[in-house]
Every structure is written in structure tokens, then in C-alpha cells.
């Protein structure tokens, strides 16, 4: 039996008639909702998210409520963020950062991260947040490829993860430490000291909607991570999805549990809520089921955007949260990161009185593309229907062509017609790799899906070998390269092994160099090597020793075959196998 959620009924959804809006929606018309920079100065994300609110009725409204690990809460109003981001923009201007330079963060969820994001955007530099759980190797790869000029981090993370690689980063000019009161040397500076000296006013320079703004690294099957570059105009997608999917209303209190080191945590944990003028909850701590429920209760959260990994953990609890906690304010729960199974949707309905709304998008799309909506019947297990303004289709793809599959229920590549505002504009310094993602007007997502007769999309699987673990993409090549640095490893292949809590677990198959015998001690040693270099979010959790790896005749590792064998499935087409 479902619990009754009275708050749900009291607030009318922004999106009343999906079909009607689908036929009339226009991105060009939607742009008109923005103020734009004064005197026709263009469109800047930070102005739309902060400055225009700070200059208006929302000046003293709480923009970010930061909950520290010890549970103490600190509020930042739109005016506070306006001043702090101005100071940061002045800090980096004085350090020589100009338009198009990249400013990285490597921090947990602390206020400086959010201040850096908006201060960087104000300076028309490019903001790139890194996941603080990464090990030194993925951090180095990203800082190096993104040509980081400035890095904002904590003393602890600097000492553990940056110091070992800093000499190999010639483009990195300054490291700004958030929690020291004095400069260490000419390169490693105290951010509080710099901020205290700067003015709290800053004039955003003219910004075009096609100017680069955000950089997010994502993994590919081959090669090292790709830097997907987004522009200031992406803010339109953030605003529209905030209204239509997240259903933001004035005075809403919203919590996105994703870390800004991943695209969800930036698009929907930083930008979308503030562009829409609501209060954004930021929790510094890691997942803790009891803590999460008490945050939902104590901070009277209305809208909660989370992930299947967390939902599955909450489903493990032996409590009835609706009885134990007062969740009367919660009217909308959404999920992204990997497909949300039907049982989790039903669990949401039974537990909270509202179904959990799944949606689909990826780093390259910059914002939600396909979703379930508050006012549309939910088909549990489906990712929903395309956002108004987005044309999606299922297609059959070859090396250089594409044909759209119109027949319902047939699986194929999920493709999107190019042209939405938050579509990535390139892979940094890898234009050829970027162009390979398109067939004419269509962006090929790499996900396999099917569409049912009523137009709902259903996830089928990945078209490549990318691993999805805890909602994050892990590229096998990056992991394999690191494992092969271990003195005992001759070859390695990495797959995603299905795991009920985190979706897929990174698993490695390792061929040892002659003279090394497989055993528990060596397994632990290789796992330790991977974790030290890559960090726990990327490193393999399990290793199998094998005599050889299946390869094509041209020498390419057949990861899909390893995965099929792992799962006890049919091995499929083996015609290209080197040693069948």
C-alpha cells in the first residue's frame, strides 16, 4: 500500500501537458527568459545563476546550505555567493588567468568548490572539477590534458595526490590551498589570504553563448579520458530541465547527492538549482543511510536527485522511513547514473508516496535528455520520454552511415539530433574523436536502447566496453595501462562485472610475466598497486589470473568475450578471434 504524500498534490507541476509542449517548444524562444549580461554583454552562466538573483528579490535568499561532516549547517545567500565569486574572479585575474584558461578543483564538497566554479565562469575561464577520490594517476592525466593553469585544492589532497605529480605539470602555474593561512611558496598559495585582499566587486566581461565554460572528463573504451567541453549557452538546458524535470518552484529546497567531480554534480548540483533560484543543499559527508534520511527530514527537502547505487543501499534498510522520519515536504525523487530497475521505482512509491523518476543523459549531453516527468504516467524501468526540444531516435549504425529504426520495440543505438544548447562542442584537443561521435545531424550516444509503442525509451546496454560503476564511467584502457605498470603484469584486460549494489564492479584479467606465480599475495599486491595509482573509484576490486587474453587477429583484446565468459553467456561471433 502506498503512503499518502499530501505535499505532492499541493504543488502543480510546471509541465502539465507533455505532448502539447513537445510540439511548441523552441530553444530560441526559451533563451528569452534570460536577463543576459548588462548592456547586451551576452550570456554568462554565473550571471544567470548568481548575479541576477543577488541584484533582485532573491538577494537574501539562501542559495547554498552547506552541511558539514559534523552536521553543522552554514547558509550562503545569493548575495554572499555574488561577493565571494567576485573575489575569486579577482584573485585569478591577478594571477594572470584569462579567457579560455582552465581552472580545476580537487576538493570534497566544500564551499570553495562552488565559489571557484562561479568565479571562474565570471572570468570567462573554463571550470573543471575533479573527483577527489581519484588517485594521483587519473588526476595527473586530467590536469595534464586539460592544461590546468590553476588548481584549487585542500592541503591534505595536495600533499597526497598533487605533490607526487606536480613536476610533470608544466602548465600548472598556481595551486590555491583552501585551508592554509599562509603561502607555502611562489606557486602554492593560501586561497583565504588571496581572497581577503581582493575586492568583492567584479564586472563580468562580455561572454558569448558559444564561449567555453565547463570541462568534464569522461572515459572512452580506447585511449585516455576525453575532455568534453561545454559552453555558457548550456545554462539554457540547465534552466529548462530544472523547470520541466526537477520541477523547481520558488522556495523549493533541493538536494542533489552527486559529487561535482561528475557531470551530474555540476549541472544539477551547482548550476540548475541556482539558475532557477532555489535553495541547494550540499552535504560534505559520504553516503550514510541514516544521515541521509535525517537530512531529508531536518532540511525539509522538497526535491531529491540521487542515484540507483544509493537507492539500493537505502532499500537494504530494515526501517520504514516514512514512519521513522517526517518526510512530508518531499514531493519529487529523481535518479540518474544507470538504469533504475522497476523494483526501485515501486519501492519509492510504497515508501515515499511518489515513484522515483528515472532519467537519462551523459557527460557529452551536458543535461537531462530523456526523462520521466511528474505529470506523466511512469513506466517502471523505463528512462522515460525525450525532453521537449530534444529529438531522440533508435538507429542502426555503421562506420559512416546511420539509418533510423522507426519500428517500435527494436533495439539499436540511441541517437540525438544535434543542436541542443548543452551539447558538448568538442573533446579537448581531440577533434577527430569528437567528429566520430556524429553521423550527419545525429549524435551517437554509445548506449543501446529501444522505444516502445507509446514513445518511452528503455535502456538495453552499452555498445562499447565502458564500465559503469556506482554511476561513473570507467574506461578499461586507463585501468589496463596502470595495471601493466606493475612489474609482474604482462597483459591486462578490464571488464565491468555485474554487481547488485554498484551496477558493475571493475574486474581485471591479468596475464603474469614469466617467473611470477599466481597467488593471493600477488593478487593483493596488484590490487594495492591499482588503488594507489587510480584510487578506489577506478581501480579493480577483483583480479583473475589467466594464461592468455582473447584477442582479434589484429591484436585487439576481446573484452566482450571475457565478459560473456564471466557471466556464463553465449560467446557470440568469434570469427575474428585469434585463437578460438
Amino acid at each position, binding site marked *: 500500500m502506498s503512503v499518502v504524500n499530501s505535499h505532492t498534490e499541493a504543488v502543480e507541476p510546471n509541465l502539465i501537458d507533455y505532448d502539447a509542449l513537445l510540439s511548441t517548444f523552441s530553444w530560441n524562444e526559451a533563451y528569452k527568459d534570460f536577463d543576459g549580461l548588462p548592456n547586451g554583454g551576452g550570456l554568462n552562466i554565473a550571471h544567470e545563476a548568481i548575479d541576477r538573483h543577488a541584484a533582485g528579490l532573491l538577494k537574501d535568499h539562501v542559495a547554498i546550505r552547506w552541511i558539514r561532516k559534523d552536521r553543522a549547517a552554514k547558509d550562503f545567500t545569493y548575495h554572499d555567493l555574488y561577493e565571494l565569486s567576485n573575489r575569486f574572479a579577482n584573485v585569478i585575474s591577478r594571477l594572470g588567468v584569462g579567457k579560455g584558461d582552465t581552472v580545476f578543483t580537487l576538493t570534497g564538497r566544500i564551499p570553495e568548490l562552488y565559489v571557484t566554479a562561479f568565479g571562474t565562469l565570471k572570468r570567462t575561464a573554463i571550470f573543471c572539477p575533479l573527483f577527489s*577520490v581519484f588517485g594521483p594517476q587519473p588526476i595527473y592525466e586530467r590536469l595534464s590534458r586539460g592544461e590546468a593553469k590553476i588548481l584549487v585544492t585542500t592541503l591534505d589532497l595536495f600533499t597526497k595526490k598533487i605533490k607526487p605529480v606536480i613536476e610533470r605539470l608544466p602548465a600548472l602555474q598556481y595551486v590555491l590551498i583552501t585551508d592554509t593561512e599562509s603561502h607555502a611558496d611562489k606557486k602554492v598559495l593560501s586561497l583565504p589570504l588571496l581572497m581577503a585582499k581582493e575586492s568583492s566587486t567584479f564586472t563580468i566581461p562580455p561572454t558569448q553563448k558559444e564561449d567555453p565554460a565547463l570541462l568534464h572528463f569522461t572515459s572512452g573504451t580506447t585511449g585516455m579520458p576525453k575532455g568534453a567541453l561545454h559552453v555558457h549557452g548550456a545554462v539554457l538546458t540547465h534552466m529548462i530541465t530544472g523547470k520541466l524535470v526537477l520541477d523547481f518552484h520558488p522556495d523549493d529546497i533541493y538536494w542533489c547527492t552527486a559529487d561535482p567531480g561528475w557531470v551530474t554534480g555540476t549541472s544539477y548540483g551547482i548550476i540548475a538549482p541556482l539558475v532557477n533560484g532555489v535553495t541547494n543543499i550540499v552535504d560534505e559527508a*559520504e*553516503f*550514510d*543511510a*541514516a*544521515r541521509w534520511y535525517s537530512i531529508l527530514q531536518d532540511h525539509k527537502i522538497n526535491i531529491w536527485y540521487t542515484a540507483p*547505487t544509493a537507492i539500493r*543501499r*537505502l532499500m*537494504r*534498510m*530494515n*526501517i520504514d522511513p516514512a514512519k521513522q522520519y517526517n518526510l512530508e515536504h518531499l514531493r519529487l525523487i529523481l535518479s540518474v547514473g544507470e538504469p533504475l530497475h522497476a523494483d526501485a521505482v515501486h519501492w519509492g512509491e510504497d515508501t515515499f508516496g511518489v515513484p522515483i523518476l528515472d532519467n537519462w543523459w551523459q557527460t557529452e549531453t551536458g543535461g537531462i535528455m530523456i526523462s520521466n516527468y511528474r505529470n506523466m504516467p511512469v513506466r517502471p524501468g523505463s528512462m522515460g520520454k525525450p525532453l521537449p526540444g530534444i529529438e531522440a531516435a533508435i538507429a542502426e549504425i555503421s562506420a559512416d552511415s546511420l539509418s533510423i529504426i522507426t519500428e517500435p520495440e527494436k533495439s539499436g543505438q540511441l541517437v540525438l539530433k544535434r543542436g541542443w544548447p548543452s551539447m558538448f562542442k568538442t573533446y579537448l584537443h581531440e577533434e577527430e574523436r569528437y567528429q566520430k561521435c556524429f553521423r550527419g545531424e545525429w549524435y551517437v550516444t554509445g548506449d543501446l536502447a529501444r522505444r516502445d509503442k507509446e514513445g518511452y525509451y528503455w535502456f538495453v546496454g552499452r555498445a562499447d566496453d565502458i564500465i559503469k560503476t*556506482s554511476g561513473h564511467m570507467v574506461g578499461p584502457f586507463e585501468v589496463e595501462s596502470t595495471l601493466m605498470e606493475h612489474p609482474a603484469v604482462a597483459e591486462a584486460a578490464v571488464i565491468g562485472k555485474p554487481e547488485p*549494489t*554498484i551496477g558493475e*564492479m571493475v574486474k581485471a584479467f591479468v596475464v603474469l610475466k614469466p617467473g611470477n606465480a599466481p597467488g593471493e599475495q600477488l593478487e*593483493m*599486491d596488484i*590490487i*594495492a*598497486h591499482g*588503488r*594507489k595509482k587510480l*584510487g*578506489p*573509484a577506478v581501480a579493480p*576490486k577483483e583480479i583473475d589470473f589467466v594464461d592468455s587474453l582473447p584477442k582479434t587477429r589484429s591484436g585487439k583484446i576481446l573484452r566482450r568475450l571475457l565478459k560473456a565468459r564471466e557471466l556464463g553467456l553465449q560467446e557470440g561471433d568469434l570469427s575474428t578471434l585469434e585463437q578460438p
Partner: protein
Amino acid sequence: MTEDEIRPIINKLLKKVAPETEPEKLKPDDNIQQTLAMDSFDYLQFIIGMDEEFGIKTPEEDYGRIMTLRDLLGYVMKIKK
């Protein structure tokens, strides 16, 4: 069970999940997950391993209460009195 009996088992289980760490150097009030740079799944695996080892069943809602060595030892000792 006493603290002296439990502590080596905890160290062994932590080392199994995060072999690159030195759990024996943990101080009583260190946050284990944070100090050993484990992710949420690692900690879940550790607690599942601990449940198996001690023949207990730690409910998910208690995970947040056993984040330090002091709390964890107290928790196990109370159950294994």
C-alpha cells in the same frame, strides 16, 4: 571477545579490501573510510566481511555509527559480549 582479539581481525579485513593501506596505524577516532581512502562500496564490503567473520548482521542503518575504530570496536564488543 576483547578489543585485543577483535582488532587484528578488523585489520586483516580492512587490508583485504584495501591492501595498499596500513590499518594497524589507525588511531581510535580516525574516520576509517576517510583515513584509508576507501569508497562507500569498499566500506560496505568490509562490513559484510566483518559480519561473516563475527557471525553478526550489521543493519545498514547502523553503518554511520561505526565509522571510527573506537565506535566499531565498541559495537562489536557489545554484540559479542
